[in-house]
């Protein structure tokens, strides 16, 4: 038996049929319109605050993370070394922990609960529930309507195949840190080209095709509502999710089409980034860099103000043997068992992640928004859901916050909190800086002071 070729599908190579090719009129939206150069002047003078979270799986070698000294006088640790040029722009936060993730298994509970600070349901699917809303989505739900996309979710790895039968969790958990609702993880984009197209499209939707799209969406809404009436509660929730996604798209189109009030305009040109190649880059470094560029593009243009990025999924076993001095994969090395050789490799990998973080900070610093840099108007959190990968411990998590959040964060410090300070306290403060305050977040007890 041969490999059956005739069912394989080509990806994007558009076949131009012989004979008269039919042009479909609403497809103009797929082409990126060149933007006029006038947005910069039209942009409102006060730049908004943006927030990004960069997630690194598998924790850090614990002895190589924490800086020496406290307050403004601190010496970067070996892992944090790549941030040397940005020492004045970061806040290293020691002794934060995520209490509610200290149960269940070693990874999935920690990853899915990183930004929700809740305990997820143990399940291979039926009652998938994180029992909360992630911190980024709390912000997105309040200010998302001000930008074309309420938030973007980016990553590198697709959801791993299968369920994890040994620990009894679906791997869906390990692939998502952003949760719009208890049962709604946000799917992340892993293909830079597709993410790019989405960002650009979101900022430029308009014209005749917009009207055409809206009629289609109206029909979908009617269909979905009709279907709703015939379904049980659980099924209704699924269709609801679809309905919401359609409604969100429709609202975005309305806002972009609106000529009233203070319509949204991009704060910068989308030319700031070249269109990525069609295929996902084979090199991990290039892949990560493109994703970082996309977050910067989305922030710079004000396409969104909230972004999350996963360098890898829970239990990620990306092979880092292409890095000098590394011979193995990430998760394998995180179980270093205190062997020097493995710890050294584990450290190189953590440090590599820090270099990528530094690259993002560098890019954001170089972009001006009037008097400030983009970084000064942002908060970029870097963190892992574990301290030591060998111990699966959510105490004293490795957390750094960079950027001045529009002037509300006194950076350039190492803050040693009292032991077992809830990570949720940081989230409470970050939401405050975003202008989307909440009274309490999960196990938060009070705001973490971000100003000196």
């Amino acid at each position: 038996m041969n490999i059956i070729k005739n069912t394989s599908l080509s990806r994007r190579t558009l076949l131009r049929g012989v004979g008269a090719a039919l042009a479909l009129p609403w497809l103009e939206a797929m082409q990126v319109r060149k933007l006029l150069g006038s947005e910069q002047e039209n942009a409102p003078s006060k730049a908004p605050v943006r927030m990004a979270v960069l997630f690194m799986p598998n924790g850090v070698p614990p002895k190589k993370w924490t800086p020496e000294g406290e307050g403004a006088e601190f010496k970067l640790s070996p892992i944090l070394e790549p941030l040397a040029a940005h020492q004045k722009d970061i806040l290293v936060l020691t002794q934060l922990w995520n209490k509610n993730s200290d149960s269940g298994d070693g990874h999935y509970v920690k990853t899915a609960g990183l930004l929700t600070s809740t305990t997820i349901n143990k399940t291979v699917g039926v009652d998938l529930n994180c029992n909360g809303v992630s911190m980024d989505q709390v912000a997105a739900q309040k200010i998302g309507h001000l930008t074309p996309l309420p938030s973007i979710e980016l990553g590198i790895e697709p959801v791993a195949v299968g369920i994890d039968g040994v620990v009894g969790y679906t791997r869906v958990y390990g692939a998502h840190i952003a949760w719009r609702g208890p049962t709604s993880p946000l799917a992340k984009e892993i293909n830079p080209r597709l993410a790019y197209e989405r960002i650009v499209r979101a900022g430029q939707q308009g014209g005749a095709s917009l009207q055409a799209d809206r009629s289609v969406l109206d029909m979908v809404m009617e269909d979905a509502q009709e279907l709703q009436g015939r379904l049980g509660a659980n099924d209704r929730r699924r269709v609801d999710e679809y309905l919401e996604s359609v409604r969100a798209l429709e609202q975005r189109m309305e806002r972009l089409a609106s000529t009233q009030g203070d319509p949204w305009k991009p704060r910068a040109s989308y030319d700031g980034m070249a269109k990525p190649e069609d295929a996902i880059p084979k090199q991990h470094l290039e892949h990560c860099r493109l994703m970082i560029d996309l977050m910067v593009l989305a922030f710079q243009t004000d396409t969104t103000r909230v972004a999350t990025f996963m360098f890898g999924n829970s239990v990620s076993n990306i092979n880092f043997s292409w890095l000098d001095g590394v011979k193995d994969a990430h998760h394998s090395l995180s179980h270093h068992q205190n062997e020097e050789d493995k710890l050294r490799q584990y450290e190189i990998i953590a440090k590599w992640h820090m270099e990528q973080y530094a690259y993002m900070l560098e890019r954001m610093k170089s972009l001006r928004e009037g008097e400030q840099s983009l970084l000064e108007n942002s908060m970029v959190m870097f963190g892992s859901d574990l301290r030591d990968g060998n111990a699966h411990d959510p105490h004293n998590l490795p957390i750094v916050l960079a950027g001045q959040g529009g002037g509300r964060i006194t950076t350039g410090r190492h803050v040693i909190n009292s032991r077992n300070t809830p990570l949720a306290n940081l989230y409470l403060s970050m939401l405050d800086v975003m202008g989307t305050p909440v009274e309490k977040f999960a196990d938060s007890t009070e705001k973490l002071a971000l100003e000196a």
Partner: protein
Amino acid sequence: MAMAPMNIGMLSSSNQCTTHAMSCLVFIAVVMSWVQNPQLGHAQEPAAEIRAQAPEENGSPPEPTVAPTPDPWLRATALLEKHCYECHSPDNQEGNLNLQKYDTIESIVGDRHMWDTVRQRVFAGEMPPRDHEPMPVEDRQWLAEWVTVTFRDIACQGKPQPGPNPLRRLNRNQYSNSIRDLLGIHFDAGHSLPIDGAGGEGFDNAAETLFLSPIHGEKYLEAAKEALDYSAKDESSRRQIFNTFPDDKTPAEEAAKSVISRFAKRAYRRPPTDGEIEKLMKLYRAGVERQYTYEQAVYYALQGVLVSPQFLFLTEPTIDAAEPQPIDAYSFATRLSYFLWDSTPDKELLERAADGSILKEEVYRDQVVRMLNSPKVRPMAESFIGQWLGTREIGRQIKPDGGMFPQFDDELAAAFREEPVLMFQHILKENRSIIEFVDSDYIFVNGETYGFYGLKENRPENLVQNLVRCQLPPGHIRGGVITMAGPLTVSSYPNRTSPVIRGKWVLETILGATPPTPPPNVDPLSEKPEDTAGKTLRQRLELHRQNPTCASCHAALDPIGFGLENFDAIGRYREKDNGLPIDASGQLTSGETFQNATELKKLVLERKDQFVRHFTIKMLGYGLGRGLVDSDYCIVDQLVADLKQHDYKIHRLIFGILQSPAMQLRPPTTPTPPPTTQATNP
């Protein structure tokens, strides 16, 4: 257990159910004796094991060859009394739980959710808590299994139940395949959709985990536009869609209605309602108003079809009834089609649905054979086998170390992924025994893997890139998935083999026995040069097992992996590790010994009932597109018994699944309580 032919009615015989619980416990005991400990009930003794393997006839319970099993209820209550009642008493009610009030099986069954929690916490070792006398691990496992079996047993006593029927969204593959068939284009329309995760029995078609994000609405709209654009530029696709054009006799509106209705019928997998057609015609008219040509306006309406929830979700008509109801013909054709083709029903299936004949056994059996012989079976074969064995990710998420295995390139990775798919297609097409997955006298090779497998005989002619069947010489070490390069790679580290992971892979993937999680803070397997020098991996692992905490689990896992040590981390045959000869012998916890992979496979074959049961669970879970519930395990028992009587022929399994209450019936539409979606964090 009775060997009556599969039918819905037979599941309700109460006589079977008493034996069901027994045989289930024995089954678990047999698996457990492999997994971890030999102390589960009395059933782990060799005699019991033989008994579990022996054919059971005429529905009478097998004669016990050893002392009778103590009443499971008595054993369970004794354990609860000893370890749990003190805190979970009417007076104390720790954790708001009084376990003493459960004094009959019925009272337990009435509190399913609570007992699930009890089962989980006991199995995980969270209960009894640390400061209390620990419950021995074998008692914990026994108690957990007893709860599971009790619920399954009760579920088999009542009328046949179809299980839940959650609304399924098309997953990414199903979306692509459906669009391919609807438009007749070779274009992956779903390429830009988010990748779906797996749930249920481990497949990405499980309703439970097919959630929708805000990104989906947008993606579906763009994907529909892209696919229709592709179609518009493809002459044969256009011909397939446009059966009518406006002419002197046919006004444009009438022609459009004909094209749109015909398309909507295929896309919605049933005749569209007048209201649905009208909505689509509204789009058509809006297009005309925008000065679109006839074809453009029709395509515009088709865009509406492709983003409608009627297309994107596998909706079935709801019935208001207190009892399970027979499924309707269109829904059955749809279930059948997404089961075997991972795609939308074709014209023939819809015709059989239209006249209702698809519900007849002789008709759908013919259809199954037709479908399994169609090339359209491939996406299902790829999806099922790739997720069951984990081989789908080879070359993607699973990449051997390039420095150590330079020969592992994209071509070899593709061949590794392809081999089990072709074997599955071969078994499906020729209605072969599923036992061949464990051991077969043939494999599939291409020009590259023929040499890789060290084959010297029966070289197929014109062997190049495509994999073809190759007869193995008698007694050859390959054949079956356990010694296939793909699974051997999946169960290795990028740079070395792992007998532990391989042992776990065989237990979990082939025999359906999930080993317990390792205890926290286990002592490491040292990789210091002074500890590795002059030792094979096997010798190092044996040292590790001198620790009794580790030994209890590793005694079940490692030996199986040792039996496969003749295969390196990409599945190549080898005779030395670290310069020393490989010892591939081992002893299972049951006491049986083997000298090499071939003998190990024989021992697995002796447990073929466990494999058959596990494979059946996987296939049923895939076919239903959801995780199995208690009542489904009654079906599993039936299917396994039926397979046993029919030489484990795979068509028998597929027919049986289609004939089962889970496929033939729909659950009553009692109002479901709203799920606990209340956020707790802010």
